[in-house]
């Protein structure tokens, strides 16, 4: 399940949903991304997330489809929030259910790495020194690349 939404989500509710359809699931891995309070010594009072409606969902689905081909995944839930968020707020959750933990850990990391470089979201930080668009981090590009060619 993929959702792009402004509402907050509950990590427990996401895990419960994956457990309900358990089948032969032996492992559930979740990653949650949060809004940091500080960036470059500046205190962030607000972060706004813009996205490309329509393409965002397609892009996330495409990333999940790639993960499905490479790992043995029973089910996955990706929720990414948009709109105005405060420090400490949850931004994104990637939750993977699989038979064994290796697939769950690796698929979750893969999906996050690709989401960081491929999914059309843009963050704007609002600080005391004004507002600015966050620049893409070269570390994220490196992280995405290390998964090798996946016929992007």
């Amino acid at each position, binding site marked *: 399940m993929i959702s792009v939404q402004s509402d907050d989500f509950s990590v427990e509710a996401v895990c419960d949903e994956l457990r309900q359809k358990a089948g032969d699931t032996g492992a559930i891995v979740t990653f949650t*991304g949060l809004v940091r309070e500080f960036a470059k010594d500046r205190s962030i009072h607000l972060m706004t997330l813009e*996205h490309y409606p329509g*393409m965002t969902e397609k892009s996330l689905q495409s990333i999940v489809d790639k993960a499905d081909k490479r790992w043995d995944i029973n089910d996955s839930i990706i929720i990414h929030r948009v709109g105005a968020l405060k420090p400490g707020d949850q931004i*994104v959750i990637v939750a993977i259910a699989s038979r064994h933990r290796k697939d769950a850990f690796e698929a979750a990391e893969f999906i996050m790495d690709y989401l*960081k470089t491929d*999914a*059309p979201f843009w963050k704007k930080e609002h600080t005391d020194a004004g507002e600015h668009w966050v620049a893409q981090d070269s570390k*994220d590009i490196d992280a995405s690349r290390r998964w090798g060619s996946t016929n992007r």
Partner: protein
Amino acid sequence: MPIRDIQILYFASLREQLDRDRETIALTGDLKTISDICQLLAGRGGAWKGMFDGSMTILYAVNQQIARRETEIKPGDELAFFPPVTGG
């Protein structure tokens, strides 16, 4: 939208600098690729020139799929220009 038009969307910092989130343009015969569209937009001068003359990193999408400068455009297409993404 008339049959030969394409819709162009601008996001994030591009939208702010160009002060426009979307527009429709007619796809005349000389406009075949994204590169051609970039040239047209750069020709407007000012912020448009700075944005589309190749000096800035811009990403492209056609009908909500990532595209390249060489990607061809057809009437009815939705074209989007945006900065490198920063989700997650």
